[in-house]
C-alpha cells in the first residue's frame, strides 16, 4: 500500500505538466507511422538529462503508455500499424473505420486500452515479486515453444484458406532470415545491399499494411470516387462504454493474455495483441464476424497491448534486466540519475519508483480522456477523398519507414514488400500471418539454437526441450491449438460444402 503515499507527488504542477506533455506528445508520436514506442521513448531521453529523476521517468512512462495506445489511431484510421503491437488492431479496427464507425472504434480502443493498462499497472504494483520469478522461469526452450505456439496461430489468422495462411507465414519466416544471422554472424539471402541489415520490422509493417491499401485505392480509379462518400457516424461515449461492457469476455481475455505475455522478456509486446485476438476469436460464439469490423476483436487486441505495459517493466524494476527494447531505454533514464533498478530503487529511492508507477496509472486515465476527446474529430479522416488519402498514406509510408533508421534501404524494402503484398492479396494471401512469421521467426530460431547449445553441453536435447512442467504445459497448449484449428477447419468445410450444394 506504500504507493498511495506517493500519489501527491504526481500532482505537483511540474510533474503533472510533464505527465500531460508526455501523454499528449506520446499520442501524437504513437500515431505517427514509423515511430514505435521504443523510438518515441528514446527520442525523449535527451530531455530527461535536464530533469530530476522522478520527473524524467514520469515523462518517459507517460510517453510509453500513450505511444502504445496512440499506435491504434493510425492502425484504425490509415491501416498503418505503428508497432507490431497494433497489428491485430488493424484487422477489425480499420474495417470499422471504413464502415464509418471510426469514432466508435477509436473510443473502444482507448477505453479498452485504459482498462487493460490500469490492470497491468496494478499487477506491477501488487504482484511484482511473484511476477519477477515468473519472468525468469522462461528459458530458451520455453521461448522456443512459445514461438511455436504463435506459429500454430498463423494458419487461422485472417485468412480464409489455411494452406495460403501457412504459406504466407512461411514467406514471413523466410523474410525474417534475410540479413546477418544473429548468432553466427553469417550472411543469408542478402541479394541487394538494402537488405544488409535484414528486414526492419517497422518498415515491413508499414509496407505490408499501408501500401496494398494505397494500390487498392488506385485500382478504384478516378471516377468511382464520388459514389461512396462514407458517412462518419457520431458515437456517444456512453454508448461506447456500454459496448465495452457487452464485450467483457474479449476484454478479460485480452487483459489477461496481455499481462501474462507482456511479462516474458524478449517476446511480450510484439505478439500480445495477436495472441489475444486469436484467443478471443476461438472463445467467441460470433467468431465468423471477426475481421469484418467486429468490436470484440478490437477490444481484445487493444486491451492486450496496453495490459502488457505494466508487466513488461517487472523484470527491469526488480531484477534490473530490461525485458524489452523500450524497457532498456527506460533503464537508461534511471541510470542517468545514478539510480539502479532493483532493491536500490525501491529501498533508497521509493519516491522515484512509486511516483513513476503512479504516474503510469494516472497516465492511462489521461490518455483515455484525451483519446476520447479527439476520437470524434479524428474519425473524420475516413471522409477524406480516396485520391487524397492514397497520396497521404504513400507519403507517410515513405517518411515513416525512412525515419526508423534514417535508411533509404528501409524505404525500398517497405515499397517492395508492399507492392508484393498487394498482388499476393489478390490471390488470397494475407498480411497478418506473414507478419506473424516475420516476428516469430527470429524468436524461434535464436532460442532453438541457444537452447540446443546449452542442451548439448548439459543433459542433451530431449530432456532440455521436452522435460520440465513448463515445457510440457506449453507443448500441450501447442497441440490443443493445432487440434482446435483442425477441428474448426473440418467443421467449416462441411458447412461450406453444404452451402455450396444448397446454392
Amino acid at each position, binding site marked *: 500500500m506504500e504507493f498511495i503515499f506517493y500519489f501527491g507527488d504526481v500532482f505537483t504542477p511540474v510533474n503533472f505538466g510533464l505527465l500531460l506533455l508526455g501523454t499528449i506528445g506520446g499520442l501524437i508520436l504513437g500515431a505517427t507511422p514509423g515511430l514505435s514506442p521504443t523510438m518515441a521513448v528514446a527520442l525523449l531521453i535527451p530531455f530527461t538529462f535536464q530533469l530530476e529523476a522522478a520527473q524524467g521517468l514520469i515523462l518517459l512512462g507517460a510517453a510509453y503508455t500513450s505511444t502504445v495506445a496512440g499506435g491504434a489511431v493510425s492502425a484504425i484510421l490509415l491501416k498503418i500499424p505503428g508497432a507490431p503491437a497494433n497489428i491485430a488492431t488493424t484487422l477489425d479496427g480499420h474495417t470499422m473505420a471504413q464502415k464509418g464507425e471510426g469514432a466508435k472504434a477509436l473510443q473502444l480502443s482507448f477505453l479498452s486500452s485504459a482498462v487493460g493498462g490500469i490492470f497491468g499497472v496494478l499487477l506491477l504494483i501488487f504482484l511484482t515479486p511473484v511476477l519477477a520469478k515468473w519472468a525468469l522461469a522462461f528459458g530458451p526452450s520455453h521461448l522456443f515453444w512459445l514461438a511455436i505456439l504463435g506459429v500454430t496461430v498463423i494458419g487461422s489468422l485472417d485468412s480464409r484458406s489455411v494452406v495460403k495462411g501457412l504459406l504466407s507465414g512461411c514467406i514471413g519466416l523466410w523474410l525474417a532470415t534475410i540479413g546477418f544471422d544473429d548468432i553466427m554472424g553469417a550472411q543469408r539471402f542478402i541479394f541487394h545491399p538494402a537488405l544488409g541489415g535484414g528486414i526492419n520490422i517497422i518498415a515491413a509493417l508499414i509496407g505490408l499494411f499501408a501500401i496494398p491499401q494505397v494500390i487498392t485505392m488506385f485500382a478504384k480509379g478516378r471516377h468511382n470516387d464520388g459514389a461512396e462518400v462514407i458517412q462518419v457516424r457520431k458515437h456517444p461515449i456512453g454508448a461506447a462504454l456500454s459496448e465495452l461492457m457487452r464485450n467483457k469476455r474479449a476484454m478479460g481475455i485480452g487483459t489477461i493474455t496481455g499481462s501474462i505475455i507482456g511479462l516474458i522478456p524478449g517476446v511480450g509486446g510484439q505478439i500480445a495483441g495477436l495472441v489475444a485476438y486469436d484467443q478471443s476469436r476461438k472463445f467467441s460464439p460470433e467468431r465468423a464476424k471477426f475481421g469484418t469490423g467486429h468490436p470484440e476483436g478490437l477490444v481484445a487486441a487493444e486491451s492486450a497491448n496496453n495490459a502488457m505495459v505494466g508487466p513488461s517493466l517487472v523484470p527491469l524494476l526488480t531484477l534490473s534486466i530490461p525485458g524489452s527494447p523500450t524497457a532498456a531505454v527506460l533503464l537508461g533514464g534511471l541510470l542517468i540519475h545514478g539510480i539502479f533498478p*532493483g532493491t536500490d530503487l525501491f529501498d533508497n529511492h521509493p519516491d522515484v519508483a512509486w511516483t513513476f508507477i503512479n504516474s503510469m496509472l494516472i497516465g492511462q486515465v489521461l490518455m483515455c480522456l484525451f483519446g476520447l476527446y479527439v476520437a470524434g474529430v479524428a474519425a473524420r479522416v475516413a471522409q477524406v477523398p480516396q485520391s487524397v488519402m492514397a497520396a497521404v498514406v504513400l507519403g507517410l509510408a515513405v517518411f515513416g519507414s525512412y525515419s526508423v533508421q534514417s535508411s533509404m534501404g528501409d524505404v525500398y524494402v517497405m515499397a517492395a514488400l508492399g507492392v508484393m503484398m498487394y498482388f499476393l492479396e489478390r490471390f488470397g494471401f494475407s498480411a497478418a500471418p506473414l507478419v506473424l512469421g516475420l516476428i516469430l521467426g527470429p524468436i524461434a530460431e535464436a532460442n532453438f539454437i541457444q537452447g540446443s547449445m546449452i542442451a548439448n*553441453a548439459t543433459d542433451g536435447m530431449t530432456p532440455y526441450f521436452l522435460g520440465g512442467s513448463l515445457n510440457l504445459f506449453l507443448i500441450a497448449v501447442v497441440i490443443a491449438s493445432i487440434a482446435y484449428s483442425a477441428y474448426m477447419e473440418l467443421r467449416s468445410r462441411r458447412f461450406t460444402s453444404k452451402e455450396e450444394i444448397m446454392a
Partner: protein
Amino acid sequence: MKNLLAGAAIALIGLTTSAFADGHANYPERPIMMMVSYGAGGATDFQARIVTMTAGNEDALGMPIAILNKPGAGGRVGWNWLAGQAEADGYTLGAYNVPHFIAQSIKGGVEYSADSFEPIANWGADPAVLVVGADSEFNTLQDVVDFARANPGKLTTSGAGLFVGHHIAALQMEKAGDMKMAYIPTKGGGAAAMKAVIAGEVMAGINNLSDAFRAREAGNVKILAVADLERNDFLPDVPTMMESGLDVDNASVNFRGVMVPKGTPQGIIDKLAATVPTMFENKRVAGKMKAGGSPMHIMTRDEVLAMWAKREETLKVLLAGL
C-alpha cells in the same frame, strides 16, 4: 522552367563546393548523426548518448549529435553500413567497439576492417568480467577453472555474441587455463546474457563490468574476476584474472569511442580529433557516466590508432586457430 531549375541546381552545387573549399572552417553547419551499432538502451547506446550530450555547447562542436541505432548481428550490420553506405562528409560518425569490430573483420564475412575507419577519440573502457548467479556454488575463479577442467565442454557460459569482447575473454580463458568451456552466445546483447545467468539457464557468464556491477548491486550475481590488467575502481574487491592465476590480459576490454568512415576530409577529422576529447572531459558528462556505473577512459586519436594496431595484432594470433 527547365533553365530555372538547372540554374538553381548549379547555384546549389556552387554553394556546397565553396563550403568544401574553405577548409571546413564552418564545420559543423548542421546537426551531426552518430551511428551506434547496438540497440537503443544497450550499454554502448546509453554511454554514447551521455558523452555526446554536450556536443551542442559553444565550446564543443556547436551542433547537437543525434544517435542513430543500427543494431544486428553483434554490430556487423551497423559497421557494414558505416563502411559501405554512409556518406563520408563528416556528418556521419560512428561509435566503435574494440575488440568487436576488429575481431569480426579478422574472422571475415564483413565489408570492413580497421582500415575502413578513422578513429576520432575514445571515451570508455569496459572490461569483461566473469559472473555467476548469486546462489552459485562457485565462489572464486579457481572453482570455475577446476570445474571446467574436470568437465570439458560442460561449463555453459553466456556472452553477448560471437567475436565480441565477451567471446574474446572466453577464448583467452580457455587458452590460459587449458580448458574447454561451452560458450553460449545470446541474441539480444549483454542484457539477455545477464538474464541467462540470473535465471540459472547457464552456469556462468561473461559480461560488461558496468552491467555486472549493477546486477551485483541488485543482489543477483557474484562477480568472480575482471579480465583486465588492474583492478577496477568500481569493483576494488574483485581480483583480476591474472591475480587469480589465469593469464588473461586486457585484450577483451571493450573500448568505446567515436570514428568516421574512411574518406572523410582530413580537415574535419583534425577538427573532430581536437574537439571531441575535450567534449568528453566535460564535468557533467563525467558525473553522469559515474552515476550510471560506466567506467570512462579518454584517449586521443593518436592513442586510439596505436591501440587499434596493437589489438589487431593480438587478435590475429588469438583467432588464428579458429
